[in-house]
């Protein structure tokens, strides 16, 4: 997972998958994060797409290898192979379409079945710019995330809200998982689970706390 590359400093490479129902905005979340682009006329993803993006943590270069998968159920036959080796996952739904939220449980099962390691998971309610036709409340998203032990954020690939934050939070959590693994004591594991949801809060100062959960609560 981590490697010393070409004589440079320490480098990390994390594999992350983006999953969720068809047309919730997975590809646009990725293109917004990796290239700061949004395409309102993007094509449906067939199979898998791939991007990488780097960030720096503790002076180390951390590279995320992000796999964007087709959302239609039928494609799981080819996309689930990509869960293997993934250490992070964004499970995306569309806040204006409840059925995509109802599917989150199935996506989590799918992830559990096919992944082979600890996965830093974040529930992402995308399209939060569509406040006027919201179908899933912030609280519902938050409480599902808490009960499943996921991070949670609402995002908008369209207006960029929280997109970078969401990805970087997952990447940071993976980084923490990896560096903590070195200690690998039971107390640390316990702490890790407890910290799951709270970690996203502690990242921000108190006044911004709510904003990290909901982008549209102004």
């Amino acid at each position, binding site marked *: 997972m981590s490697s010393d590359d070409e004589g440079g400093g320490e480098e990390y490479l994390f594999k992350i998958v983006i999953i969720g129902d*068809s*047309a919730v905005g997975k590809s646009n979340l990725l293109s917004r994060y990796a290239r700061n682009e949004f395409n309102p*006329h*993007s*094509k*449906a*993803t*067939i*199979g*898998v*797409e*791939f991007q*990488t993006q780097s960030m720096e943590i503790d002076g180390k270069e951390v590279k995320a*290898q992000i796999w964007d998968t*087709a959302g*239609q159920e*039928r*494609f799981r*036959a*080819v996309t689930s*192979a990509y869960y293997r080796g993934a250490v992070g996952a964004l499970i995306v739904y569309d806040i204006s379409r409840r059925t995509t939220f109802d599917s989150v449980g199935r996506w989590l099962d799918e992830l559990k079945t096919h992944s082979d390691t600890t996965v830093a998971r974040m529930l992402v309610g995308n399209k939060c710019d569509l406040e006027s036709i919201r179908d899933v409340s912030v609280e519902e998203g938050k409480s599902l995330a808490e009960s499943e032990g996921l991070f949670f954020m609402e995002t908008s690939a369209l207006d960029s809200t929280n997109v970078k934050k969401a990805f970087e939070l997952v990447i940071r959590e993976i980084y923490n998982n990896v560096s903590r693994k070195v200690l690998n004591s039971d107390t640390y594991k316990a702490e890790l689970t407890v910290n799951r949801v709270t970690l996203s809060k502690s990242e921000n100062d108190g006044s911004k706390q709510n904003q990290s959960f909901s982008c549209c609560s102004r």
Partner: protein
Amino acid sequence: MERRRTIDDYEPGPVPPQRPLDRFGFIKQDVSNSQDGLAKSRLAFEYEREARRVRKWRKMIGVGGSDWKHYARRKPHVVKRRIRKGIPDCLRGLVWQLISGSRDLLLMNPGVYEQLVIYETSASELDIIRDISRTFPSHVFFQQRHGPGQRSLYNVLKAYSVFDREVGYVQGMGFLAGLLLLYMSEEDAFWLLVALLKGAVHAPMEGLYQVGLPLVQQYLFQFDQLVREQLPKLGEHFSQEMINPSMYASQWFITVFSYSFPFPLALRIWDVFLYEGVKIVFKVGLALLKYCHDDLIKLSFEKLIHALRNFPEDAMDPDRLLPLAYSIKVSRSLEEARNEYEKRHGKLVRSRESIQEQKQEQ
């Protein structure tokens, strides 16, 4: 009237285009108005050549395709050669229907399409609607919301999802249907889809879209074997970099190159695909890898993935790529790889069953 129609008098479509379109109706990516004398004279030369080809083709297929079957039986090699050079664009729709066997299906099933479109309902309707605007979004015919293009696309896909409820609607089918609709009516496009998926002339391809995508898996396995066999160095490099065909070639098979390849190339591939079958997809795939071999072999994982999804312009020039593709022989290897796949796949199914049995016993 038929005789006077040449390739340059394409119809502009229902909505006056705001942005410049290419000759196929796609919005141009880069707008350059400069057309120097050289390009113009080359264009004139090409039109003349195109006109000669159209005359030859008309003679070959006869009025409304009446002489086609006779000719194709008598001189299959001439037909194959001419199709490999590209079907004239103004005859493409008709010829596609003749060579795919869809025209016969249409004639044998009067009224069936109308029945499917008007009276039946499909469980996939919402899924189809969601993807309509995400199919060829840069083409003028499919751009207008609820316009004739989008409506036809919806109708064809819905009809098919009713016609074969087991397959229903799967993302990717829209690109096949969309491509066909640019060259023929809804009903004709529907029957061509049926001819392809149910196997009117070649082996059925419905396995591309059935649960588990079995044919996609098989094709990817076969392609992997072909790469190792025909481009061993590159195959080895791919293994080392952990690249497998599912990362770059799924779309090639699922949409027969219609998803992201330059349209002129996609059309030329479809000409051959409909006449000779899926072999051409393997050949074109291998030709792309072969053409870019020396560059690809130097790249590491990330750059490789990018390169395999963004081939250089010259590699995608049909007159360069297709002759290379035609020169690659795949029949025997494909057959062997399929046997191998079936052998392993059989085992795979059995082992999965035994795992389930074990689970039940516990």
